[in-house]
């Protein structure tokens, strides 16, 4: 029956699990250091992304709930659409045009989430579906990551409004560290490459600070028991192990583990994307495999694939594996001789 509920008994147990809505809110709070640090280095374009994406997210969720004849206010109260908006917002290049964000949020909220049945039923991480769709559909806009700059860069408003002529776009773009390293070419050794100062002033350290800010948010989530350690540890662990293997085999052509860890979306992905419980594996063992799989795919795609970063693809690919993981990572119930995987179509 359970007349007691963890979220209702206050005071004497600090380890209580907060209800779903407040889980989501804690994740939102934990994104703040990352958003603040990004805005500090890359300007207010980060904030405009987040605000636009969050607004679109909530509006689209409300519209879809209305069309699906579901309670709107109660459902919106779980803040999950808001969170999806924030996560997609910080993934996009700063000051992305509004229509780009809208297309991404339609893919995330309408297609990836509500059409599958809403919160709890989406097999793919909605924010990453939006991101991946934009990356393959609008590569020009998605690689426009301006170098660290003033808080309000020139052409900020027209950029958001989408009225900036395409010819000017190139002048805004700068390579991210991952992007630059990917295109260094086989002729150049890693040490020679870094000696050429391939990146605009401060880019590398800016990315590192951003990474550390996401890590801080992640630690907060772990400390508050909002997420379990399994996925981030497995993912970061496999990134480090695989990157170290590659690096040791040929330090002159492969990036160092620290480089992989601190640049790009590795830390953000490990704590904020891969840990989305809905689209992740549910058992502890499954979570470890899931996280490790994402980490491995990140390194493989970054090293051998066509894209500089790979967190979105890695997460989506592992989302595909979740039903399988859930079937094969069944723990051994007490008193059962062994864990019995539940095979499809098998009759008991």
């Amino acid at each position, binding site marked *: *029956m*359970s*007349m*007691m*509920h*963890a*979220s*209702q*008994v206050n*005071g*004497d*147990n600090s*380890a209580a*699990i*907060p*209800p*779903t*809505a407040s*889980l989501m809110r804690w994740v939102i709070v934990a994104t703040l250091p990352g958003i603040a640090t990004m805005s500090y280095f890359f300007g207010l374009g980060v904030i405009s992304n987040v605000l636009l994406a969050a607004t679109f997210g909530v509006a689209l969720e409300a519209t879809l709930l209305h069309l699906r004849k579901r309670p709107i206010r*109660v459902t919106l109260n*779980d803040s999950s659409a808001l969170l999806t908006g924030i996560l997609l917002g910080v993934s996009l290049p700063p000051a992305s045009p509004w229509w780009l964000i809208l297309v991404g949020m339609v893919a995330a909220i309408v297609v990836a989430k509500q059409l599958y049945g*809403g*919160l*709890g*039923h989406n097999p793919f991480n909605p924010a990453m579906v939006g991101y991946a769709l934009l990356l393959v559909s609008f590569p020009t806009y998605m690689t426009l990551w301006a170098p660290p700059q003033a808080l309000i860069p020139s052409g900020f408003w027209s950029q958001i409004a989408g009225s900036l002529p395409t010819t000017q776009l190139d002048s805004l773009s700068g390579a991210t560290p991952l992007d630059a390293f990917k295109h260094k070419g086989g002729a150049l050794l890693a040490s020679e490459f870094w000696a050429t100062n391939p990146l605009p002033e401060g880019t590398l350290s800016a990315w590192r600070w951003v990474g550390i800010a996401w890590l801080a948010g992640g630690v907060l989530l772990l400390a508050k028991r909002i997420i*379990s350690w399994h996925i981030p540890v497995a993912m970061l662990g496999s990134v480090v192990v695989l990157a170290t293997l590659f690096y040791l085999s040929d330090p002159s052509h492969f990036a160092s583990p620290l480089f992989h860890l601190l640049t790009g979306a590795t830390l953000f992905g490990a704590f904020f994307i891969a840990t989305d*419980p*809905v689209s*992740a594996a*549910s*058992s*502890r063992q499954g*979570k470890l495999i899931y996280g490790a799989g994402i980490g491995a795919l990140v390194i493989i795609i970054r090293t051998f694939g066509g894209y500089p970063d790979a967190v979105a693809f890695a997460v989506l690919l592992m989302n595909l594996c979740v039903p399988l993981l*859930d079937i094969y990572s*069944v*723990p*051994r*119930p*007490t*008193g*059962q*001789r062994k864990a*019995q995987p*539940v095979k499809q179509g*098998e*009759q*008991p």
Partner: protein
Amino acid sequence: MSSAYDFPGGIHPPQRKQRSNQAALIEAPLPKRVVLPLQQHSGQPATPCVVLGDVVKVGSVVAKREGMISSDLHATISGTVGEISATHITIEGDGQDEWQRLPHLDWQSAAHEALLTRLSESGIVGLGGAGFPSHIKARVVERHAIHTLVINAAECEPYITADDLTLRHYPAEVLEGAQIIAKLCGAPHIIIGIEDNKPEAIEALQRELQHDQTNSQPVPVELTVIATRYPSGGERQLIKKLLDLDVPSGGLPADVGVLCHNPGTLLAILQAVRDGQPLISRIVTLTGDAIAQPGNRWVRLGTSVKELLEQAGLNPSGLHQVIQGGPMMGSPLLSLDTPVTKLTNCLIAATIDELPAPPAESPCIRCGECESVCPVALLPQQLHWYARAQDDAKLARYHLFDCIECGACSYVCPSHIPLVVDYRDAKSRIRLQRIEAAKAEYAKHRFEFRQARLAREEAEKQARREARQAQQRRMSTSAAASSDTVDLRGLRIAHAAAKASVKKAEKTLARVAQEDPKQSLDDLEMQLATAQENLRAAELQLAQAREQQSSKESP
């Protein structure tokens, strides 16, 4: 002292035990009338054996056990039988409190059969919650060798302190009761498992054990203090924790050589054997913010819950709900006009603030919290999906029936999904389906029972006829003995087979009744009755044949 082993999962809900374990254990006032439900135990309801207006004393049997898994019921106050219905017997008290006890039994010298009979006729059932008849449980030794008797004093649910107080007040009696059970099941070892949140009970036990070393108990007793964590008092969880043994799925502790008993039951066993006092009262924890004088009381069975709570200073305006049992596994009482039964270990009169109604359910976000707290290492989330989808094949594959319904998953669920309610519903639905599916089988068993009964009646008639004829023969001294030779050997084999099938039916019944207390036992009881009828008939035939044989040999 402490244990090295562990079970998975578990939670730490607020204890709230201080509310009821501060006050001393006292006797509740003698009720003026008691209502005794005929079903206060697992198995079949008892059958009334008194009539309206009968004068009864405390300890008089008012209902006899029916079938194998059942229990006798005794008057808990002296007075007259006021009402007998299909479900309960009411006794109007005379205020005299006159007792009728069974004779004292020296358990150390008494035969096993005498002790078992005493447990049975004293109506002793497990007082921890399941209400399983103790004499049936003790007979487990006929099929399994028991190496350890576990005294389950973990009492892991919040609020409840009945075992705590039992041990503080009656440590010697509980230990002696354990010795009786150890003797009955031949256990060479006794372990007491107790959570570390009961220091006074632990101290009382330690004192008693030290004191006992001088007059040496027959079976050595070990005291193991375990960390407080819900649900360490689950039978399987405690056995895992104390002995690192896994009770197999669908099995019983006896399958791994362990027997579990609750301290209250052991006390009742001692009182039944030593004092000849049947089970007529029990210790009940009265607690919750809506009563002024919480604490533990000796309560006569059948006392009205309402009366009991009012005596403890119930504040009706603050009362939100009364929960029978603990807040995790207990259930809310729909009406306060219910009696205390053998199974009532705790009554929580809760205000709305202490145990509020659960918030509205939201969708499962697959966070996996439920899985990490499940003490059986099940996947509560998968069970949730399949229970809602009524996918019984998947439920079986995810081991629904291994769920002990502890409620840890519901407790931690951030979406407030009433998971255990789903599982209980699914289980009862599947039990009903099984009954439906076996209907033809049941009808066959009923038919077989009827045939067996007729055959037995025929055999009885035959026996009477033969006896009459033998009488006449002897009088007329005409030695015209029946010409046909008697197949004595065949009858002996038939008798042995009938005896074996009674044993087998008893074994199956005892097992099923303990494995799933909510299972309907009607069919198995019917099969047992059939086997008993067959045995009776075989006995008669055999006796008759022997009679004939002897009369032929000595004309």
